[in-house]
């Protein structure tokens, strides 16, 4: 059997139409989800702000300006600690794999190759936070004590 007759006999048109539709449905749905993913993540990362906004709406304590300033300060601090914690977690794994002492350019190069976000800024924060300390011989060490105490902070 050949030609249209064969296609109809095996329900070819139906299979092809449904097949194309399913492929499109799967990929369109996936593209819709991932097009909104970064927005959802942004909301998640800024959750403190939104929670505080909600609190502010229902709170009656203290003058508005004072509350706003306090909230802003708290948010900035929480955000900074969260970002340091995240970076320190990633760099702790990296440095363990590299071994100590390590060179900063090498650390940044590996971090970049692994796609870690803003490695220069992250390393700068870790140095400021005394998580990465110089060994006085041109290389650097990982401050395990500081890392452990940071990890325990809520």
């Amino acid at each position, binding site marked *: 059997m050949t030609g249209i007759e064969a296609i109809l006999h095996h329900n070819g048109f139906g299979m092809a139409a449904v*097949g194309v539709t399913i492929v499109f*449905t*799967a*990929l369109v749905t996936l593209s819709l989800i*991932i097009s909104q993913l*970064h927005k959802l993540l942004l909301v998640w990362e800024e959750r403190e702000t939104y929670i505080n906004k909600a609190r502010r709406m229902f709170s009656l304590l203290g003058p508005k300006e004072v509350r706003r300033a306090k909230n802003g300060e708290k948010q900035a601090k929480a955000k900074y600690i969260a970002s340091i914690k995240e970076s320190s977690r990633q760099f702790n794994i990296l440095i363990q794999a590299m071994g100590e002492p390590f060179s900063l350019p090498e650390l940044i190069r590996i971090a970049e190759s*692994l796609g870690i976000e803003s490695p220069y800024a992250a390393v700068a924060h870790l140095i400021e936070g005394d998580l990465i300390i110089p060994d006085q011989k041109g290389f650097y060490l990982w401050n395990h004590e500081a890392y452990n105490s940071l990890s325990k902070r809520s």
Partner: protein
Amino acid sequence: MEMFLDFFSNTGFALADYRNLIMLGIGMLFIYLGIAKDYEPLLLVPIGFGILLGNIPVFKGLGLSIYESNSVLHYLYYGVTQGIYPPLIFMGIGAMTDFSTLLARPVLMLLGAAAQTGIFLTFLGALALGFAPNEAASIGIIGGADGPTAIFLTAKLAKELIGPIAVAAYSYMALVPVIQPPIMRLLTTRKERLIRMEEPRQVSKREKLIFPIIAVLLCCYTAPAALPLLGLLFLGNLLKEAVVTERLAQAARTSVIDTVTILLGMTVGASTQANVFLTSKSIGIFVLGAISFCIATAAGLLFAKIMNLFLKQKINPLLGAAGVSAVPDSARVVQMVGRAEDDTNFLLMHAMAPNVSGVIGSAVGAGILWSFIVG
């Protein structure tokens, strides 16, 4: 003297016929194209050498031929016939692939979906030519331009066609730089080829980490039969993005994929014994495979042009050709054709988005065909 003649009658020289010589020629051509012309050498060299191995006529009963159940080659071929190697290759591909451009511009994923139209149109064409539905599905998947997917589906639906379909799929993948450019030039104007793409946004590490999890759940819930391929593709990608599993990702993208590629290429080549391979069906498969590949390319290009009717920020329709999942060759061809018009227009990064979505699309397409035919 009698012993000598008896021995001689069992040698390859006595057992070979003209068809073996033709296949040896094809095997050598593959090796030549791989080494001298640099066309997909990692695939064509093992396949070409496998063709040489498969076309050394052997005395039956000694367990030498790939089709004899007690032969070494037969055990190695088990990974092909049971569909084990293709998912492992997908894991390696996942561990190599950066989905950033796709995450930055998800609309380009539609081009990967559009190119899969070629699979289903060729499926209809093969049915019309008298192929059984399971064979037609295996032939259609060649249009996905994805060797492992084609082998996987054929292993599930039409084992006897693995040789010709694998050779056709890999040949066309190797010939992407030859097949695609004329179609691309024919279906686009110069003005369209000059369109520049805007810079993609920066994608966060967290997005890249979440993507494989969302993608595997969504795609495999939609088309469960795509699970072996997409499951391992996204596992490989998660290993890559997780940082903490860098060692596993490194293994997946180097030793695992390299070992499997050697075994798959060599055994697929060896399965093309002249008496199995040189048939009228194989010729039909090669012709339909080429048509499938061309339709897939054209469908991607035309869909990109249709999208441009609705988009404010136009996309370069050449990107549509990268919807076929020959990664990264079709993306490279897009870059090449784009630069031929304007050598400051860099399309490679943008073309990777439809290219990797083509991989996902063809695996979903294969899963759908598998469930239609078997279900």
